[in-house]
């Protein structure tokens, strides 16, 4: 066992950290946040140029075939800079899902474009009743002549407005929570019967609800006809949850650093407020929680591609639970220790606060994963 990174991994981490420092200042980010699209295509091209969009694409399809540890190092840096680009959706979740589905034609068509940063494919899986439970899918795909008809609703799909195409999950058979029968379909963004309602979310990310009303698709739109659709969906989400945990850790470390710095500079009662023991202990607790979260993010990265699904579920739920709890505590205390300044839009701390809150609300919150973990004790 060891916790050191290879030279290549360390170089990757240094490169991405430097990129974020140089291209994603608070002012840069503010400009991107208020732009019509809410993310920067220029930055996206730079990320592609650095090879970052190729990390989760296998080598045979023009990718780097790197793994969750590399993704973790990238996401740590993206967390610190609160990047708004659709990296998690389009460069982690989508290529992981396509690779998992094992459809060689689709993989050969899409993955090289994803690796090159030319295609933004967005996975639309979550539904209003899903609440973290990946198998809770009500959208139906009925076989109809030489194709399928999709009917259902997907909600709060992150980065959906940026999509060049959607990968929509729907069931061809089974009840609303069966794992069997869940499939993945390629859906064009201009498909007839597809209604996209776009909006901003709490953290400034652009998202959308997708309503599919008798959306007709050719048979060829079904991806991975011979594979277990749900297993692929779950495996891809595990990789993405690991990446999300890493982003949260990046934020926690950055927000803890700004809080320590702020309390050293803020003077009240004739001294820096960092001298007050009650605040010192609070920051120690924030530090401890961030360290525990880091440990669980490592665990998530190592376990998210484990061959045993139940081992993966346990590890990922444990990680997401700790990250959610730590993120909530750190976010709340960081604002508290900044006092009124923590409430303003003018400092990074409130933006970190909102992103950590949004992360906990994504793919099951801390309580959901605590319950999932508890349920695994029974078996």
């Amino acid at each position, binding site marked *: 066992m060891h916790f050191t990174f290879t030279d290549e991994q360390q170089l990757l981490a240094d490169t991405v950290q430097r990129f974020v420092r140089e291209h994603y200042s608070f002012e840069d980010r503010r400009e991107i946040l208020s732009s019509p699209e809410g993310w920067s295509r220029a930055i996206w091209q730079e990320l592609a140029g650095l090879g970052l969009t190729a990390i989760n694409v296998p080598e045979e399809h023009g990718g780097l075939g790197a793994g969750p540890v590399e993704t973790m190092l990238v996401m740590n840096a993206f967390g610190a800079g609160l990047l708004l680009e659709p990296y998690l959706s389009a460069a982690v979740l989508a290529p992981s899902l396509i690779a998992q589905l094992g459809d060689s034609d689709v993989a050969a068509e899409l993955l090289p474009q994803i690796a090159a940063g030319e295609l933004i494919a967005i996975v639309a899986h979550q539904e209003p009743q899903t609440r973290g439970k990946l198998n809770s899918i009500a959208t139906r795909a009925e076989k109809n002549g030489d194709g399928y008809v999709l009917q259902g609703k997907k909600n709060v799909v992150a980065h959906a407005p940026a999509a060049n195409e959607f990968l929509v999950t729907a069931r061809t058979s089974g009840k609303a929570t069966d794992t069997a029968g869940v499939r993945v379909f390629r859906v064009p963004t201009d498909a007839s019967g597809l209604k996209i309602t776009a909006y901003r979310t*709490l953290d400034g990310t652009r998202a959308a*609800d997708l309503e599919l009303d008798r959306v007709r698709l050719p048979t060829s739109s079904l991806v991975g006809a011979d594979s277990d659709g749900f297993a692929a969906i779950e495996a891809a989400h595990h990789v993405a949850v690991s990446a999300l945990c890493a982003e949260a850790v990046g934020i926690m470390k950055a927000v803890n650093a700004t809080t320590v710095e702020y309390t050293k500079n803020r*003077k009240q009662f004739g001294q820096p407020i960092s001298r007050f023991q009650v605040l010192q202990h609070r920051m120690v607790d924030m530090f401890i929680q961030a360290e525990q979260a880091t440990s669980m993010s490592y665990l998530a990265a190592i376990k998210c591609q484990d061959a045993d699904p139940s081992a993966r579920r346990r590890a990922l739920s444990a990680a997401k639970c700790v990250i959610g709890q730590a993120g909530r505590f750190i976010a*709340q205390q960081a604002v508290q220790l900044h006092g*009124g300044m923590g409430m*303003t839009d003018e400092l990074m701390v409130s*933006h970190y606060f909102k992103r950590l809150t949004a992360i906990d609300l994504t793919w099951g919150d801390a309580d959901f994963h605590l319950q999932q973990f508890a349920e695994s004790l029974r078996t």
Partner: protein
Amino acid sequence: MDLNFTADELAFREEVRAFLREHLPQELSDRVKNGLAVRVEDYRWWQKVLFERGWGAPTWPKEFGGTGWDPVRLHIFEEELALAGAPKPVPFGLRMVGPVIIAFGNAEQQKRFLPRILNAEDWWCQGYSEPGAGSDLASLKTRAERHGDYYIVNGQKTWNTMGQHANWIFCLVRTDPNAPKPQQGISFLLIDMKTPGITVRPIVTLDGAHEVNEVWFENVKVPVENRIGEENKGWTYAKFLLGHERTSIAGIGSSKRELGRLKAIAQNETKNGRPLIEDPFFAARIAQVEIDLMALEITALRALSAESKNRAPGPEASILKIKGTEIQQALSELLMYAVGSYALPFERSSADENDFASVAGPDYAAPLAGTYCNMRKVTIYGGSNEIQRNIIAQMVLGL
């Protein structure tokens, strides 16, 4: 000992309820109950309605137009208003500067200012905090120099709530920079917001709202007659005001209302095909807050009872502030988590910048994340909860 209300007190509660049924419009109470922004004109209108009923200033003595109620009646009144979804009284006139003017103002000032607070003609705001003076309020630097019958005020105040609507501001200013202790050189001034040299600049908060401001003073001329009490004794009046602020922050009535809303939403939301409120885990979270709130209510009633026996509200009021705000935050957190992924859509209304637009998911979900963000302020303002703990440590425990 008796934890029940007397027959008189229960009859009073009925009287308040009947009044609310008759006078509080459904549209307004729906806004309050759903966590939407209350419009400025509605705050004013509602204050006038209460004033006409003789209930304009529940905490003031009768001779100044108050009700003269004992603390138990006051508690019942505030709870019923909050439960019914009445707009929360804007505290700056009624709960802050009003009591200061009553206790320390001269007859002229009482005659001039109090009636205009009662009937909502004046909207007051607070000039206390400064960028360098928050928890350490006494280190404030806004300077007032005496020139004959006037003070000339220069400096900057911050975290000024709703000052963009105000026509008067009460300010702590430094009149003696050479006093041996910072608390000794402070005076309490009432300043007309229309005086030349005052600039109000918005501060946008993390929820995207414009609720607070910076207020700048540049050679602002303030008549000496607008000073409360003695020169350089302002700290005494300031502390008196802060005590009043602390007890009004507990918000038991509004927390009860929010608890009811949480239960209704948890009944409506589903998890694994069942109402969320039937999920043992989430139900336990609601139960925990409800139990904390029950304890706080009895603690508050004990404090009120001590007060009605003419023992002044002591530093125990800090308990109410700490627990009250913790409960408010816990409720806003559970409300947000209750709606799951639909807590995330976050769009301001195009019609009113202080409203959220319901773009996706149930209407009740739209403002919940914003409220959760906004509620971070309650453990910071009115003396942060860390400062409240210092007060208990020093004044109650003698540490």
